[in-house]
Structure formats: C-alpha cells, structure tokens
C-alpha cells in the first residue's frame, strides 16, 4: 500500500463536484462517481454518468427520499448499464414513474459489486490498487465543516449512525508540525487521513471534498465500503463434458 494516493490527480477518473440540491441523492451520486472512476481506470475512457437514471429507475421509488448504494448498482445491472449525464441530465427531483433508461445509449456498465472488509488498511489497499469506492458515514460534523482533517470520537460522531454516502478517492498524511513545549521542540505525529468527494457543491468544504482521520473508523467510514466492479470477466478454461 503506498503512503499516499489521490485519484483526483489522474485525469479522466474523477468527475467534477456535483450538487444534490434539494434531493437526498447522495447514494446515487456516490454510486455514479464510483462507476465513473472504475470505468475510467479499467477502460481508459472518461465518462460522466446519469444520476437521474438511478433516481428515476430504482426499485425503491422516489430516489430523492434517500437510498442505498447497492440499489443503485442493482439498477445499473437490471438496465444493462447507465446512460451519460449529458443525455439524461440531473434535475434535482425524481420521476419514479418516468424511467427513461431504454431511451438512451448506455455508456458504462458493471459486472457486479462487492462489500469490502471493515478494515481500513484493506480499504486503503483496494483504493490504491483498484480505484475509488463508496462509503456511508455519519454526517453530523459536516454541516459546519470548512477544511482540515476531522478526527472525531464515537461521542462526537457515532460510527453506528451512518446517514450519508460519499466517494472515497484517496488517502494521505498531513505534514508533521513541530510543537514547542517547555522550551524544547518535539516533532508531532503526522495525521493520516482519507480524502472524500462530497456532493454538496464546490463551495462547501475543500472545493467540495473533505478529509476524515484514517485509522479510527471516523464517523463509521468502515461500515459499508462498497464498490462496483467493471473488470472484464476472467476467461476461464473451457470444460467439456465427455459424451
């Protein structure tokens, strides 16, 4: 596992920051961002996918009332892919009875999806070697967040009460700063952090992103680490039943 990883630095992988507006569509935004990134990495083609299709065509009805990441992936599997954002643009409101999935060409599709282990090192390894993944967190500290690394406790941010989906795009360590105490300098430990892409517009946080402490299950980040897989299926050796 590398010391740092930031998929934003690789062109064509992470799409621009989006804004949910008055719609609880974080789950669809995170899922679309995950497929965009995986598709970009595996096929070397940059795509921006339709969040609106996930909102309109999900099996749970009104997608603006919240949802689950796995339902977004099930929708993509059921519809054999996802249209582009350009063809099927985001409206900020769902039209559950007007699914237009069949109307537009699919520009990306997935093989399946998996949930990773709740181990932050395993999550980091997958992120670094396979690409961005979705996570579901407690958003309690984000309303007033401006910048920096959030290091929460289970009291300030309950890791069991997860209520917001975002895309994990990297990790790193903040530079160690020397602290002066009682006349002598002590190098302080650097803080490891996760880099997360939010869907509340670019005017929020660090240009739409935020950072959470890595290694303490901050705000429940390890509860549901889920990702789609767009790898080509491994060609297995054919077996023939003897006549």
């Amino acid at each position: 596992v590398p010391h740092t990883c930031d998929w934003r630095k690789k062109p064509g992988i992470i799409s621009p920051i989006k804004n949910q507006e008055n719609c609880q569509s974080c789950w669809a935004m995170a899922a679309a961002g995950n497929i965009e990134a995986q598709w970009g990495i595996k096929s070397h083609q940059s795509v921006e996918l339709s969040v609106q299709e996930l909102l309109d065509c999900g099996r749970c009805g009104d997608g603006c009332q919240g949802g689950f990441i796995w339902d977004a992936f099930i929708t993509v599997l059921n519809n054999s892919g996802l249209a582009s954002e350009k063809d099927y643009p985001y409206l900020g409101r769902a039209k559950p009875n007007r699914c237009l999935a069949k109307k537009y060409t699919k520009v990306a599709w997935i093989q399946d999806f998996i949930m990773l282990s709740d181990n932050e090192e395993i999550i980091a390894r997958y992120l670094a070697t396979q690409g961005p993944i979705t996570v579901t967190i407690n958003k309690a500290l984000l309303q007033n967040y401006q910048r920096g690394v959030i290091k929460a406790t289970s009291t300030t941010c309950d890791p069991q009460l997860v209520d917001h989906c975002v895309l994990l795009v990297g990790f790193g360590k903040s530079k160690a700063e020397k602290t002066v105490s009682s006349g002598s300098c002590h190098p302080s430990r650097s803080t490891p952090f996760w880099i997360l892409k939010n869907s509340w517009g670019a005017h929020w946080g660090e240009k739409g992103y935020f950072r959470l402490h890595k290694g303490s299950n901050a705000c429940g980040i390890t509860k549901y680490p889920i990702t789609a897989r767009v790898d080509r299926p491994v060609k297995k050796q054919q077996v023939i039943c003897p006549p």
Partner: protein
Amino acid sequence: NSPGAQGSGPQPLELKEVFKMFQIQFNRSYSNPTEHARRLDIFAHNLIRAQRLQEEDLGTAEFGVTPFSDLTEEEFDQLYGNWRAAGGDFSMERKVGSEDWGEL
C-alpha cells in the same frame, strides 16, 4: 452569548455583519423580516455549535460559516440526510468471506 441577543455592546452588530457577508457569499435572501430574524438566530446558533466542534475536534479540522449555516440541524438532515440509510428500515449483517477483498 445567546443567539440573536439584543444586548448592548458590539457583538450583535458584528454578528449581523457576518450574517450579511454570508448572505452575499451564498446568495441568500429571505421572504420577510421575521424569516430574516429567524435565520439570523439559526446562523448564530450554528456559529456557537461550530466553535464547540472546533474545541472538541482532535484533528486539524476548522468549523465555521458554510453554505448550510442558516439551516437548523433538522432542516439539514431533511435536505441532505439519507433517511433510508439512517432510519433503520433495513438490516444488513456483515459477513467477511475468504476472498481477498471481501465477499460478493
């Protein structure tokens, strides 16, 4: 300092100035003076909350004015929460299999 307090001293004026800057920065306007006063109260409450979070945080995070500073916690939850995920209308038992990355 109670939110929106009308006591003497510079603080209420400073708060109003900060709120005015917030309105300009995030293009906020309110339908009537009552609503404006209510949002100012909420804004002040959020600044106090941000200060408390700043004190409690163990990392390098900074908390303060954001695009959501004129919303109550409940409004923020309703607008930006994911109630299906938080509401407990599902239960999912985690099982980690023998695969390297987890399980299907």
